[in-house]
């Protein structure tokens, strides 16, 4: 199989990614201490405008977008690397939401749509979000034809990044098929809020919103499926970053916290617990990497199966790490002013969004028969 050239990796690409990682780590060390994050959450935007500007300056929002529209070379793996680092610092900015939407626009948008929206998205001047299709209960807006174009109606709960988005991509049924429409944020009723993990989301209502014919993206169902898999893989990368940080935090705490005259980390039962947490982290990182490889190969069923497998395995690991991170911290693990509870929240919500464990297990089972050449 030839694969998708844009997603192929050579040694130059890996070197560039390593350099980008270093720059981002430096920027996060400056902008994203736990205290800075808390202050950002308490601002009206509920995230850090300063950090967003830093992401834009580093080119993180341009990664993997067409260079003709202000993009930079890169692949989903680069966006995943960024997502992992942002998960580690519990970042509040809608980076993944914007990237999934921008990449979808680059893959499925018309030439005019791309030229109109991508430069500002790549520069970080706009934020966007794809209204996710929950595999547990797939729901679509309804698009009906008018003389001038379409009318869109639908109601959507918990759109990640939806509170800050300037632009939505809305999946809808149009003429009996799945289509994607661009809706500016001011065309929909929006209730924005912070989630339990402090990231932003919104509930949306589109009530007979008129859009012109050129608001429809060039591709529909297939592009949507691919974008949802991207969202799953990036969320997995974010969770991997959160697990790495939660595990490091727990190890530091148990090394320093003394009870019965010795550090907690000297108790074998807790050592084994932390060993299991490290195993979970390693498993999650590996299956996420495998999903990125499968994604780069380009074949739809392979990609979908790998994404769903990652969602399940990363979810299992996230649950284990989240529980034990709190348990080993004791009461401190629940306090708002300490990061442990925040890792619990971020890892806990991973399984709630983009389809739960059952949905993805069933998807893996169903896809097995569709594979051209089963990997196992």
């Amino acid at each position, binding site marked *: 199989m030839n694969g998708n050239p844009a997603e192929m990796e050579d040694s130059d690409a890996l070197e560039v990614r390593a350099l980008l990682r270093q720059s981002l780590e430096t920027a996060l060390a400056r902008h994203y201490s736990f205290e800075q994050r808390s202050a950002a959450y308490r601002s009206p935007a509920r995230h850090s405008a300063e950090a967003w500007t830093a992401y834009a300056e580093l080119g993180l929002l341009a990664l993997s977008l067409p260079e003709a529209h202000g993009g930079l070379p890169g692949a989903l793996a680069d966006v995943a690397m960024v997502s992992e680092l942002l998960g580690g610092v519990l970042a509040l900015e809608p980076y993944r939401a914007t990237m999934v939407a921008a990449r979808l626009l680059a893959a499925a948008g018309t030439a005019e749509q791309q030229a109109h929206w991508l430069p500002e998205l790549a520069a970080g001047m706009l934020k966007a979000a794809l209204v996710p299709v929950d595999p547990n209960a797939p729901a679509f807006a309804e698009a009906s034809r008018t003389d001038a174009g379409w009318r869109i109606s639908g109601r959507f709960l918990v759109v990640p990044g939806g509170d800050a988005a300037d632009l939505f991509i809305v999946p809808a049924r149009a003429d009996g098929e799945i289509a994607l429409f661009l809706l500016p944020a001011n065309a929909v009723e929006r209730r924005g809020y912070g989630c339990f993990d402090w990231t932003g989301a919104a509930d949306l209502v589109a009530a007979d919103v008129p859009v012109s014919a050129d608001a429809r993206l060039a591709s529909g169902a297939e592009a949507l499926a691919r974008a949802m898999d991207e969202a799953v893989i990036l969320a997995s990368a974010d969770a991997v970053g959160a697990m790495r940080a939660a595990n490091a935090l727990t190890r530091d705490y148990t090394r320093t916290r*003394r009870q019965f005259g010795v550090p907690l980390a000297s108790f074998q039962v807790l050592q084994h617990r932390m060993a299991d947490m490290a195993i979970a982290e390693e498993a999650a990182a590996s299956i996420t990497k495998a999903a990125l490889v499968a994604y780069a190969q380009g074949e739809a069923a392979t990609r979908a199966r790998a994404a769903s497998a990652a969602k399940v395995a990363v979810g299992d690991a996230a649950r284990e790490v989240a529980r034990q991170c709190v*348990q080993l911290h004791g009461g401190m693990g*629940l306090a708002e002013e300490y990061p442990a509870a925040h890792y619990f929240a971020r890892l806990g919500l991973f399984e709630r969004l983009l389809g739960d464990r059952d949905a993805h297990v069933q998807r893996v089972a169903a896809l097995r028969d569709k594979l051209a050449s089963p990997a196992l």
Partner: protein
Amino acid sequence: METATHSDEAFVEEVRAFVRAEVPETVREKVVNGVSVDATERRAWHRALYERGWVAPHWPVEHGGAGWPALRAFLFNETLAEEGAPDLGTFGLKMLGPLLIRFGSDAQRRRYLPPLLAGDDFWCQGFSEPGSGSDLTSLKTRAERDGGEWVINGQKIWTTMAHEANRMFALVRTDRDAPKPRMGLSILLVDMDTPGITVRPVILLNGNRHTNEVFFDNVRVPAGNLVGEVNQGWTYSRALLGTERLSIARVGWNKRQFAHLKRVAEAEGALRSPLIAARIAEAEIALMTLEAMVKAMIERARAWETPGVEANMLKIKGSELQQRLAELLVEIAGPRAAPFQPDRTAPGQDWTAHSFANHFYGRVASIYGGSNEIQRNIIARALGLGHTS
């Protein structure tokens, strides 16, 4: 005692009917959803129990209790929990009362028991400290004798309801040179409005503000506020933990939350998924097992067998089930579990608004009251597996 002739079943039905008559549906709904009951609602229920003579089922009659044997008190408490009656606070009626009845002075009993029974006093427990959680006997808050007073200096943490309580019983160090740390501890009764006490809330990620740090800066309490003898505080507090052995599994609580889970699952159509239906059935099996373990423990108690480590086992099983039930609600809520609802009493909010907050807060069940790791240490020691600390 009027209920002595009733069968257990008739008694339970009587208690059930009483809760349903006295606790408004809105309040029971709050309890099921893990939303804090406000002080007015709590006092109204306290008053109803007080007037019925049921506020302290396990206390002896001469001290104003119902004087019921442990098993009847157990049935009573579990039925209240199952019906969603508000918790009146563990520390006053369940801990401080029995503590004073067993170890306090006549003067202390006269002064503190009547307002506790009437619901005029609300107690908190000052035990844990920043450096002393599982290893409680290492605590550092000290009390020094100065004439007719004790002078307290130090800091407590995880002091539940300290911001609403008007009194605290505190475990403090009174002898720094005792041969073992646990031999230098005493229990002091402290009025929360004594000068030198500062209460600072510890806010949890679910927005809960019910736990606190409490700072003591030269806080003076009369010598008569020492419970029992000096340096016997640890012995007393151990004895107290034994009084709640039967209720530690929280069977009534788990039954109530399981019923809630089933109602929600049915209303949401979640049982159409065979996978969810199976997990709910598994939770039901865990509940049946927990109940069977409690019954086995009761039968041993009836046969006057020396209690073993069953209570420690039940603490683990009960807390694990509690956490599982909360997780299942989050699973059914799906993405609707994500939004944070700081004001959980705002109108129009359904069960999903509480699901992640309760799942999160449920994690304390395996941390407080002796973490599940500590419970396992105790079980291991009882099994002859040697000291783990």
